[in-house]
């Protein structure tokens, strides 16, 4: 600023008025309604919380006790196992159904369409009960060639299809219908040029699907599949109608003995919340993995973000003093 060696005092006077004229403080618009709105919401939230916490009808000691009850633990484990198996098998099935739906063979694509139509069009609860009653429909289950006497394997329905198996079947087949539409949308989202580029390099259709199309489709598939996994976890509670001992059934069994219905529902809900919260972590990392290349820089992981907030202070550095002086 003091570059000119000649007559410093005079120049200082010449520059200063210009600089102060532009040096205006900008004050953002005040928003009083934000504060008022926040206060009202907080008031109601506090009121609700107090009414729950001071409610003499809730036995908090019982909640604490049953939260770690071994029967509840068994229910949690079974819920997770059912969710895991149903999601994995249904996803594999969904890929097959989506491929059928996208195939140029009209029979395959219509069968896939009918499958989705039937399993998506009827309530899950009805499907669960129906699978539970499979023994009434077929006394024996047979693997063989249709319309011939050739039988490879045969078993009594009620031996094979226990309540657990019926429940798994119902959840898996129903989920496959929904997931197949998600997979199909993912496949359709990949540009046709990708297939052509892969083909022009000499890749076979299967290799192209596995290494080029599916990884790109995954980016579109994973977020809704995360949703579906959380839905699945909660839908396992419907299996109580065929007496599968997952967490909700365990909770109702206990509460039918000690008549602490609300407490056990709270216990089950807390466990559901914990499980769904944990399930969203792998989804985050999967999205990151398959999002490679889609944006210029990858978003930080929650761990990186946490570290960043602790290592860098909130102090905002003042803008460096500008050397530019308006030229007159």
């Amino acid at each position, binding site marked *: 600023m003091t570059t000119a060696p000649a007559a410093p005092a005079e120049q200082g006077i010449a520059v200063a008025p210009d600089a102060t004229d532009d040096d205006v403080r900008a004050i953002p618009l005040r928003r009083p309604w934000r504060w008022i709105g926040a206060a009202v919401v907080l008031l109601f939230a506090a009121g609700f919380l107090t009414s729950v916490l001071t409610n003499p009808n809730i036995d908090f000691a019982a909640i604490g006790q049953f939260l770690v009850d071994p029967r509840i633990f068994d229910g949690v484990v079974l819920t997770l196992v059912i969710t895991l198996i149903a999601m994995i098998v249904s996803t594999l099935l969904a890929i097959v159904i989506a491929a059928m739906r996208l195939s140029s063979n009209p029979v395959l694509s219509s069968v896939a369409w009918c499958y989705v139509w039937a399993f998506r069009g009827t309530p899950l609860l009805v499907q669960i009960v129906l699978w539970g009653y499979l023994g009434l429909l077929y006394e024996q289950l047979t693997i063989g060639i249709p319309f011939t006497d050739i039988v490879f394997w045969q078993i009594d329905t009620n031996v094979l299809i226990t309540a657990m198996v019926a429940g798994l079947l119902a959840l898996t087949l129903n989920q496959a219908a929904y997931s197949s539409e998600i997979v199909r949308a993912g496949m359709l989202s990949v540009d046709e040029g990708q297939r052509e580029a892969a*083909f*022009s*390099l*000499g*890749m*076979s259709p299967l290799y192209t699907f596995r290494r080029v199309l599916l990884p790109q489709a995954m980016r579109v598939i994973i977020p809704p599949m995360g949703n579906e996994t959380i839905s699945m976890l909660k839908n396992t509670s419907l299996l109580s109608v065929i007496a599968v001992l997952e967490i909700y059934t365990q909770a109702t069994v206990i509460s039918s003995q000690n008549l602490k219905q609300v407490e056990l529902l709270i216990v089950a809900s807390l466990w559901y919340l914990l499980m769904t919260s944990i399930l969203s972590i792998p989804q985050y990392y999967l999205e990151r993995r398959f999002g490679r290349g889609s944006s*210029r820089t990858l978003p930080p992981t929650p761990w990186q973000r946490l570290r960043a907030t602790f290592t860098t202070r909130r102090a905002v550095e003042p803008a460096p003093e500008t050397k530019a002086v308006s030229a007159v």
Partner: protein
Amino acid sequence: MNTIATTPPAAGTASAAVDARALVEIRRVRKSFGAHQVLRDVSLAVPEGTVTVLLGPSGSGKSTLLRCINHLESIDGGRILVDGELIGYRQAGHTTHEMTPRQIARQRRDIGMVFQKFNLFPHLTALENITEAPVGIAGVPRAKAKARARELLDRVGLADFAGHYPSQLSGGQQQRVAIARALAMDPKLMLFDEPTSALDPELVGDVLDVMRELANDGMTMIVVTHEIGFARGVADQVVFMDGGVVVEAGPPGEVLDRPQRQRTRNFLESVR
């Protein structure tokens, strides 16, 4: 005059500098999309080590012809031979039968293709884009494929961009990676489908330079483009197509500077 000899060039012709045999032979190829005839009896020969530029208005069938050469489009009649091998079909008497996808994939390994929209694999880095096919399809050891990929990236002027994803590269850089990706399979023939049409004007030069170098190294190339300057400087043969037929073909000095047909003249005036 308006078709190119389907046999190798005769000894006496002016362009006999290349006396190589035809690497690509296209004989009476016909192709329709529904009722619309895109290619009507197209015949063309591309001698080994030469550059052929296909010119023509949009809808003239030039891109379709290019895509027939590696069987991205199937043909309805005629035949296409690359290095003496019938593409996409096997012959049985007077008919040909389409090959299985696996057999066609095998043939495509020898034919590189570069697309207007680059079509790089967005989930792979530049290096991985180049190594994917050699490692996964041709069974080249990973280390060797990587070394080769780095060599190719260096050749297209992108040695420092091996770890970049396509979204982090400019259009011109993406197209040069796409060229390197095609070259990684050591093709006998390179097809370019309007390689500079999707690029900003200032990025076109880099891509054309790479193609020019490739031509100087003796690669057999068929290029669909609107870059008349490139055709004049690099092409051994310029083919003008319109309405699904070859209107005029010959050395660039003849077709571009002394076109015999009115349609060719009109087109050249419109792109100039």
